[in-house]
């Protein structure tokens, strides 16, 4: 994992989305919103694409103080060798989803956001 990222950055557009999310008063810091975005992208099974210029926001120590992010990514992608690179790309994907969510709902609607996550076949069968 030597090639892994030491910092996490976001694109300009995603930076604006982070600001909007914090301004809505639901997050005390942008890092909480960024991690939510990551979690959303993982839950949707988004395939992260490495692209465009990003501005560094956090070093990985700040971004993932207790290692939960790394652990989550490795749970979903056990073969992954560069979990923070993956994390950075997932944050970008997730923030695009959150930007669309804000656009259509005007605010962060947690219930809608969680209900939009595709259910497993088992859950579908139950519910």
């Amino acid at each position, binding site marked *: 994992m030597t090639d892994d990222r030491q910092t996490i950055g976001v694109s300009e557009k995603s930076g604006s989305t982070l600001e909007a999310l914090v301004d809505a008063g*639901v997050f005390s810091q942008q890092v*909480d919103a960024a991690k939510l975005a990551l979690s959303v992208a993982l*839950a949707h099974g988004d395939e992260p694409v490495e692209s465009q210029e990003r501005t560094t926001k956090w070093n990985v120590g700040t971004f993932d103080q207790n290692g939960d992010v790394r652990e989550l990514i490795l*749970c979903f992608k056990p073969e992954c060798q560069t979990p923070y690179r993956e994390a950075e790309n997932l944050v970008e994907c997730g923030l695009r989803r959150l930007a669309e969510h804000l656009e259509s709902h005007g605010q962060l*609607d*947690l*219930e809608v956001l969680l209900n939009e996550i595709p259910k*497993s076949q*088992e859950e579908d069968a139950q519910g």
Partner: protein
Amino acid sequence: MLKIREIGIFNFGPYRGKQQLILGEKDGVTLVYGENMRGKTTLLNAIRFALIGKILGRGERTLEPYRLMNSSAYSEGEREFGVALLMENDGEKIEVRRRCTVGEEPDRKLKIDTTAFVADVPQSQAETNDLLQQLMPEEISRFFLFDGELLQQYEELLMEESVAGEQIREAIEQILGIPVLLNARQDLGEVIERFSKAETREAKKNQATEKHAKNLEAVVERVKELKKDRDKLKEQEQDLADKKAAMDNALKRSSKTQAHMAKLEQAEERIVAIDAKCDAHKEEIRDLMKVGWLWPAMSKLREMESEILVAMETEAQKKAAANRARLIGELAKEAVEVGKCPVCFQECECDGLSLGDGSENEDPDSEASDRQDEANRIRQLSAIKRLLNHPDSGRAVTLMEEIMAIVAERAGLKQDIKDINLQLESEDVEELKQVQANYGPTNSALSECRRALKDNNRQIDEAQSSVNALRKRLRRASGSNQSEEMKRRELAEATRSIFEKSIGRFRDELRDRIEADASALFKKLTTEKQFSGLRINANYGLEIMRDDGGVQELRSSGAEHIVALSLVGALQRNSSLTGPLFIDSPFGRLDAEHRKNVVKALPGMAPQVVLLVYSDELDLQMARTELGASLLAMHRLERRTATHTQIDAN
């Protein structure tokens, strides 16, 4: 007896140009019909303006007279309006003219020329003022020219400590002539003071009485000072009472504005409360979101957890099957080698048979890989369990739902505030705020002033007792040598005592007469047979008595109206001044039967009665039937345009 013969108006309110209403010389009832906004109240105001120089709006609010210039005439460049009353007072012809000239904008300063003519002879300004004051003192005009809808204010007479009630009571005493006696008593007080001074001066010359005279002089001086204080306090009390009454009126007038402001305040307070709740919710959500970022991934993690558990179970079953196969193989091999089953010890023939020990199918590489997989699964399961060990999203979802409800409520409240502010733009909020701010301090100052007045009266009584005691001593010390001044003072005091008693007796008699007259009229007016009459209180307030001897506590608007009309009729009958009765909207909320009774009673209430009514208020046919020969004339106020009403257009 004062009668109005003719009313002439010029560009006054909706009355464009010069117009006349002739009332004639006979006693009886005149009806003036006019629908809403045709100028009935303005006609009453024109008479009030001619007689006392004031104009009242709704709720007894004094209006600037310039507002009564006909607006069409004004916009066409005319600047004059006015009113003239031709009257007869005890057989003497009197005319009063008030001509008004409106100044230019923005001040519209008004110049008013008032002239009275007695037997066609013009009077000086001072004579005019005296004449008008004599004809219709402002304080009692309320009993001659009034808005029927305001009759309910007489209910205030039943309330002790009511400022409005106190003012009405004073006006009632004025119309009944009590001030004549009060003035006489006051004048006698001044005479006593003058004689008393001379008496003391004389006594000081005599050695035997000098000491008592000096003491008396000092105490009399103290009484004088105390009385001066009392006068000042009374002035102050009157001033404060007037202010309070004006504020009460302003508050009554602005009840709509007050309701709007209360609603506004309520909405603003609610916004502050829900904002605080919203902030607290957001604070809690922010804390929850520090770990809540995991929620979207939770269901997948749970899915993974159960997949791993299933895989581990399958692997365990697979391992158990392999173990079983290996054991059976080992047992079979032993049986072949020994010729006996190691489990049941039966002999077996297995010559030449060769068996493996069951380990031939085992792949060492596959076993290592399985162990690695198992270790991975255990590690992954442990990580998943740790990640799942976070609070779920339920609380945050609830908080967010509440926040969204708050946001919606807030938007509604903001819209309400906007609407109320829009309404308040057309209302005098500043005046109301000022009244509300001043009301408490004025009320406290009035109470304080009344306390001081009570205290002052007590001190006067005490000082007066000392004066009386000292006078007795002085009299004793004078022996048989009583001065002329002393005799004069004693005579003046005896005379004042007669007036003192007569005031009380006169008041009592008047109250009895008013109670009797008002009761008689009330019984004619009311349709309720169980009401036996009215009972008067010290303030001239009237209570309705039932025939079982009880007091009717709850009174409807209609009952209040009938009681007030009874009081007005009784006052007219007992007044020292007899005049015309002009009533605007006389029937208030009275039903048909009560209206009929009132109409029937009108000719007995005053020699000249003029009713300003709208057509639905008084049926002309009924009025003709009930009034008979007492109905003198019927006039109509006809609409020409919105700003032009014509009296008797046809």
